[in-house]
């Protein structure tokens, strides 16, 4: 019994050590990028040669990157709003009225996540040319972003609807509440955490997505990941690390503000 307990404890120690190594592995590239952005030297090296914020100054004076950040923020905001409304409505339908079509609704709403993103991007590119819209404006890009963020709204909202008892709505109805009042007073408060969590993920996914933006962007407009990718193919200055760090910080701010202001827990990736 004693040796059994000892082997159990050493097993637990081994498990914890292993997990800490994995956490280091997960954090390593992120920490390295942030560290490299503080480099005082002209070349990308890690550990940095002296600390300085000079590459942030270069970056904030770089119109191309600043424009890309603005584009990314605008696209992510619009796509999240559209996807949030469309996706939440569809998820309500899925949870309550879909009936026999339930499985089909689920597959349809998850499809953009299950299909390879590169293939979806290519298919959309050809389609927008086939119908004559092309990629001269931002419509194609926006449609793509709404499409790939939709599954994240669905996953979050459907999770928040799991414990939803239709009896509450019936009770409200029998007390004389109309459909709009029922939605506003009963349904909306119940799905609110799911909607906000879903929108949070939708925003982050849209802000960071690559393949869809790469194929569907119009000439002259780039989102931040695309601009960064182009830059990385030719340049090795720490400016890219500064850009990346700002992008990471922006995402972090969005997450923290949403968490604190709206007091919710992320329950789905």
């Amino acid at each position: 019994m004693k040796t059994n307990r000892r082997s159990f404890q050493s097993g637990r120690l081994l498990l914890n050590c292993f997990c800490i190594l994995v956490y280091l592995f997960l954090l390593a590239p992120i920490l390295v990028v942030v560290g490299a952005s503080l480099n005082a030297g002209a070349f990308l090296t890690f550990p940095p040669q002296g600390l300085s914020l000079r590459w942030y100054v270069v970056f904030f004076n770089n119109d191309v990157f600043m424009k890309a950040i603005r584009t990314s923020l605008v696209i992510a905001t619009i796509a999240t709003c559209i996807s949030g409304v469309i996706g939440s409505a569809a998820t309500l339908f899925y949870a309550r009225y879909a009936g026999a079509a339930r499985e089909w609704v689920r597959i349809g709403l998850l499809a953009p996540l299950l299909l390879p993103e590169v293939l979806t991007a290519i298919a959309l590119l050809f389609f927008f040319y086939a119908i004559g819209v092309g990629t001269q404006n931002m419509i194609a890009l926006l449609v793509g972003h709404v499409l790939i963020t939709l599954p994240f709204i669905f996953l979050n909202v459907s999770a928040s609807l799991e414990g939803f008892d239709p009896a509450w709505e019936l009770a409200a109805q029998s007390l004389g509440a109309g459909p709009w009042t029922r939605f506003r007073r009963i349904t909306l408060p119940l799905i609110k955490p799911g909607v906000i969590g879903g929108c949070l993920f939708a925003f982050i996914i849209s802000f960071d997505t690559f393949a869809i933006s790469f194929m569907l962007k119009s000439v002259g407009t780039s989102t931040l990941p695309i601009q960064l990718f182009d830059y990385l193919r030719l340049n090795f200055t720490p400016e890219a690390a500064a850009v990346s760090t700002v992008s990471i910080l922006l995402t972090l701010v969005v997450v923290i503000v949403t968490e604190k202001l709206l007091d919710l827990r992320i329950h789905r990736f």
Partner: protein
Amino acid sequence: MTPARANSKRWLLIAPAAILVGVFLVLPYLNIILISFRPPAQGAPYGAGYTLQNYGKFLSDSFYWLQLWNTIAIAFVTSALCLLVSYPVAWQLARGNTRMRGLYYGIVLSPLLVGIVIRSYGWTIILGNNGLINRSLRDIGWISAPLPLMYNTFGIVLALVHVFLPFMVLPIMGALQSVDPALESAARSLGASRTTIFRRVIFPLSMPGVQSGCILVFILAMSAYVTPALIGGMRVKTMPVTVVDTLIDAFQWPFGSAMALMLSLCGALIVIIFARLTRMKWA
């Protein structure tokens, strides 16, 4: 309100999403299948009529077979490594009664909050010839020439494991959390050892999580573009990189579509076989 009107209003809830998915996902996929049967043309994306020559070109060239094989192998090894690394982590997150749980959970989620371009870039800083590992080893004096950590399959797999690890940890963690602790006590009271409990009770019950994690990581790894493009460089190319080159640089829409569809078809086949082998319904 009459029931019929109430019903028609219900359909309004799903209508926008249905139109979006129908028009901008189903139709484009049907369209790309059609394009893959078009003949190539000069100065236009594709010519008139239909042909099988794109598929013929793909299937008769060993260069593409080799690349397809490499892509599948990379995705397979990535999923296997992800599973090996993720299971203990998922276990700790699901069962460890540690105060650090929130922090650990945040670390597991953190890669999802950082774009894939940035994460791949981070790996180039670590793995490059002048990167963190090679410079440190040179400074200690263990090596004189840089180790080949990047621009090869090793680098791609390592970065892909990092990129997709959360997609394996989360489903397994979910499955482990839903295992009833009473089953474990029951097994123990019947005299089962810890290893036996794990092997006969807990692991089989965590299989749905293992299965969906493996499927998700495999699909994502097979169609990954950014990581192989940045880490593999010009030397190691996976199918998605070649597909994008063919479509964008070489402007060969029909052949590129055929390649992309062949890749997806192989991926789907492997996933179906895997789901059959693990004897579980595709969820």
